[in-house]
């Protein structure tokens, strides 16, 4: 007889693959055989998660075709069961799964669009965090001569891609077929986006230039305001970095400030 723990492990196998003979014997078979009864759970698992992926990746689904997407989602679901009880948090590895598919070798931007859609799904559901006031930043920054780090709100995402995925996604959702997307793909413009949530909770996609994006990347990596400013100015002399900082605070994208200890500052300069 199966133990309590074995029953739970056998149920896992029945859902992801097929029930063992021993597990079939552990389930009452009467007017309806055990295998058919277990199919209810297997089918619900696959269907609900496939539907969940379709909701998170609508543009990707349109781009690769509904039937292909659903088939890939089915493979993915069977190979990558959720690690979180929340269905809206399912699909983290799906873009990488798509990027490894040979059939999509000719359209590598498809998995990049999926990566953008996952980033948008994550930020919509990211935890709230109280934001820091611009005046507090100015005071602290002056006092510490810019030797401070910023901590972004959990809903802030820096997204970059070698493909113009922002436009591809928008055009695909608007109903463009492959012909509408082809010129964008041919343009080969990369994507640099600051993704965040507006006060109503809607996702915002802000296209960035290289200088501003470099500054944001350094800030995200824990570098100081000074270092981020210098990086932007090195790329574009006269870059309006203070406008970028003001935007970050006005949009409520900064959730924390922390001084860089004096003993670390010299090291930071050398780095």
């Amino acid at each position, binding site marked *: 007889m*199966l133990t*309590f723990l074995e*029953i739970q492990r056998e149920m896992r196998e029945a859902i992801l693959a097929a029930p063992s003979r021993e597990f079939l014997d552990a*389930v009452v078979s009467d007017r*309806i055989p055990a295998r058919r*009864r277990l199919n209810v759970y297997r089918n619900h*698992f696959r269907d609900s998660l496939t539907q969940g992926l379709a909701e998170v990746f609508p543009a990707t689904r349109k781009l690769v075709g509904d039937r292909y997407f659903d088939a890939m989602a089915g493979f993915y679901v069977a190979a990558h*069961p959720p690690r979180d009880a929340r269905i*809206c948090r399912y699909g983290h590895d799906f873009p990488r799964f798509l990027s490894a598919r040979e059939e999509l070798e000719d359209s590598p931007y498809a998995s990049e669009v999926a990566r953008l859609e996952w980033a948008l799904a994550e930020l919509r559901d990211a935890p709230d965090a109280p934001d820091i006031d611009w005046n507090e930043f100015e005071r602290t920054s002056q006092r510490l001569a810019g030797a401070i780090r910023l901590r972004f709100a959990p809903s802030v995402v820096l997204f970059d891609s070698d493909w113009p995925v922002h436009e591809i996604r928008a055009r695909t959702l608007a109903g463009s077929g492959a012909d509408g997307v082809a010129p964008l793909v041919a343009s080969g413009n990369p994507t640099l986006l600051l993704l965040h949530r507006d006060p109503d909770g809607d996702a915002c996609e802000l296209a960035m230039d290289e200088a501003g994006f470099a500054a944001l990347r350094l800030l995200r990596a824990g570098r100081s305001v000074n270092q981020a400013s210098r990086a932007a100015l090195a790329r574009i002399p006269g870059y309006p970095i203070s406008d970028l900082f003001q935007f970050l605070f006005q949009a409520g994208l900064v959730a924390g400030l922390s001084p860089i200890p004096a003993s670390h500052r010299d090291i930071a300069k050398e780095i």
Partner: protein
Amino acid sequence: MHLKHIIPPLSSGIGYRAPHREAMHELRPAVGFLEVHAENFMGGGRRRADLLVLRHDWPISVHGVGLSLGSAERPDEDHLSRLASLVADLDPILVSEHLSFSRVGNEHFNDLLPLPMTPLMLRVICRNVDIVQQRLGRRILIENPSRYLSYTCSTLSEPELLNELVQRTGCGVLLDLNNVYVTCENVGGDAFAWCDSLNMKSVGEIHLAGHTRVDAGGETLLIDDHGSTVAEPVWQLFDHVIRERPMAPVLVEWDSRIPELPALVAEARKADKRRARMLADRPPIAAGGGHLAYVS
């Protein structure tokens, strides 16, 4: 902020789902309370903000589907923390979960998987319910899920197990009458007898929902899809149970093929009318047996 929430007596609640977001604000239906799936509101952003607004106008009940209280493992600490945070923010009138498992190791199966009804399972779920109640600092309700199979090793009936769980942990029961009917039709048993063997005093909430019938190799299997009106046999069970527990909060769920809000509210009204009719036919209730109330 201190809110006093009282479920209006005899006023059934509805499951709040995202497609009804706009209609809730426009129509402001006079329903007793709203119930939400905890997992849909554990993040931040618009969904959580909307809920914090709704709680000013309707009592909120938090219904979890992902704690996996029947798992051999203890409840997932991260998930429990998110639930505790939501409960702290909302101060809901009710918090509930299921007599089922959905997690094996670190993997989640997005379903209410059936448990073997054994003394060992009872000990496991008692341990897990204790952990959750201690963490949340409150009593929770445990719902009987719909089942599509039973195990040969089961030695206890579902009501026996729930009665014992209540006795040992002090939790309550969320009696889902559609699930009772679906389970009894699928695995055998009489739904009325099932209800009669449950300690009715432990029932802190009643759920109603629709189900569908599918063909399983020439035999009929009932699927608890929450995608239609409440079926007549389930209403008959409701009439039977509500005599015993007339003031229990009643909720109508509708999760697939979701209709316009008025259709869902109409289903809740139907529950109100049936309850009123049953109450009219029974002796007056003693004072103090009243509706659920709390002050936060």
